[in-house]
């Protein structure tokens, strides 16, 4: 007897309380049925849910620090309540709009240029014929990811200084011999391009894994049908990794406001604060002066709320257009 039948009986019976009763029993019925079908799944979920309860939800009351004037000896509960003061301090800061703007701009630029790059690399690697060459490329391109950020930034600063390799190279095309990291409008390109340089290889790994999961039969069938490589890429390869792309894209949207401060701090300087000072770097400098948790917790909370809204929106859009959703 299917659930639909039961519901329709209830409807035909006509009275409100009658269908309500069935709805309640319906729910209990569904629970029992679900449990029967997925009993082991419930068991599987026990450690998982416990994990999140203990390590994520239990400590969550710490977010209250954002609304308090935290003093470690008093503890979180007893520290004085200041309401939205920390947030107001943040929003009314003379640089608030600038750092917000810079954060978003750097994030979006990273997204537009940096997100597709590993995908394209994966696709190109996929087209290589020589197995040895493929292995070499795969093994080398991810290396910069493992070189520490401090060293990478040291290299970047050297390359774009007034006598650096890249500056000199750009000089061939008429570019003046100036330090690129002292020009506001060059910061974002330097930042994004060096991100790609460091991360393209590592980022392509997940797409290569997705590509390896596409059945070769599909390609063979397509070749028989006379489809060329480009056609095959469009109709088989890309749709084949689309689920991966979309999931990663949605997750990325959830990190839009979180431009990490480490790289910014290693590269920026006051001459280019106008485009390089982001939320995290500004708060970091403030943290050195103030040494308090409350403010940075409040900013963190603000970031989280915005990021959360972004990911919900991205997910909703994805559900609408692609019928794929994270939840």
């Amino acid at each position, binding site marked *: 007897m299917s659930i639909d039948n039961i519901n329709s009986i209830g409807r035909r019976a006509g009275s409100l309380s009658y269908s309500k009763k069935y709805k309640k029993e319906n729910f209990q019925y569904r629970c029992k049925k679900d449990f029967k*079908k*997925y009993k082991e799944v419930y068991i599987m979920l026990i450690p998982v849910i416990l994990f999140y309860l203990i390590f994520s939800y239990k400590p*969550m009351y*710490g977010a209250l620090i954002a609304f308090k004037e935290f003093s470690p000896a008093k503890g979180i509960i007893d520290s004085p309540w200041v309401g939205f003061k920390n947030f107001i301090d943040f929003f009314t800061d003379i640089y608030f709009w600038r750092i917000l703007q810079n954060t978003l701009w750097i994030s979006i630029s990273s997204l537009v240029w940096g997100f597709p790059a590993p995908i394209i690399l994966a696709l190109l690697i996929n087209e290589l014929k020589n197995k040895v060459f493929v292995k070499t490329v795969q093994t080398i391109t991810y*290396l910069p990811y*493992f070189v520490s950020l401090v060293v990478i930034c040291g290299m970047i600063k050297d390359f774009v200084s007034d006598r650096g390799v890249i500056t000199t190279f750009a000089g061939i095309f008429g570019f003046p011999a100036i330090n690129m990291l002292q020009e506001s409008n060059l910061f974002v390109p330097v930042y994004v391009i060096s991100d790609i340089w460091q991360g393209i290889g590592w980022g392509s790994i997940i797409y290569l894994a997705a590509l390896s999961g596409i059945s070769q039969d599909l390609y063979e069938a397509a070749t028989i049908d006379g489809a060329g490589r480009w056609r095959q890429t469009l109709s088989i390869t890309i749709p084949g990794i689309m689920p991966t792309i979309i999931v990663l894209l949605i997750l990325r949207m959830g990190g839009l406001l979180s431009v990490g401060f480490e790289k910014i701090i290693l590269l920026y300087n006051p001459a280019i604060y106008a485009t390089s000072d982001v939320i995290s770097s500004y708060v970091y400098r403030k943290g050195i002066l103030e040494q308090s948790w409350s403010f940075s917790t409040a900013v963190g909370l603000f970031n989280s709320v915005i990021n959360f809204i972004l990911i919900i929106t991205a997910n909703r859009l994805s559900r609408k257009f692609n019928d794929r959703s994270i939840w």
Partner: protein
Amino acid sequence: MKNQTIGEKVFNIFNIGIMIILVIITLYPFLYVIFASLSNPDLLIAHSGLLFAPLGFNLLSYKAVLSYDAIWRSYGNTLFIVVVGVALNIVLTSFGAYALSRRDFMWKKHVMLFIVFTMFFSGGLIPFFFTVKELGMYNTLWSVIIPGAISTFNLIILRSAFETLPVSLEESAEIDGAGHFTILSRIIFPLSLPTVAVVALYYAVGHWNAWFNASIFIADRRLFPLQLVLREILLANDTSSMSGSFNADSQVQIGETIKYALIIVSTLPILIAYPYLQKYFVKGTMIGAVKE
């Protein structure tokens, strides 16, 4: 050998060309680090720009780094953390990914939201510290392994991979009387091997690079993981943050070169391990696995 159109031939050459350039520019930073680590620190200071070979070959920096007992012990600690950690990670993450990829599991959406919410909202360091301490994990390696047992990001990736497998497989297995644990281990898991390998790699690298939890929860230096030890060495030799008149205004540092030797020492194992995992990402691993 199929016939290639002119277009395809041009593309191939173009592709190979791009790859070669890419290989060169991505290889360079690492080569630089190797050369610098083998250089004479005095010569390195007076040099700027590209490095094509070590300047005045010497092994001083490696000697300094490797003679430090703590490095070897911390290597052991980190290995333990990685092996046990990744095992725990894969088991728990698979459980979660499997559960959340079951098509008509009625709590799917709720659990997902429950989990994703934690990606954004957290309580910060101090309550986290108390939680871990209350569980008795303070000053043990477990304080590094267990709180990192599941990464939501990796969970979502794995779940997507599980979801893309055809339903027919599971249905036929169910008819054959297989329970969920069996389906997970015998069917889903093997068929998602590439993604599982990637997730394992992400977890492994994450554990390998981690130092923060250890710096908060572990007081006994003998339990320090590799990256924490290295970080301390780096900071102790760092002259760029001079402040105040008292601090150890160090006359002669072991040199810049030690920074580079540290990078090599700490990343070499991962680099050696990676090619073994690579075979899972090769095209055509899944030939004939799924017959629709």
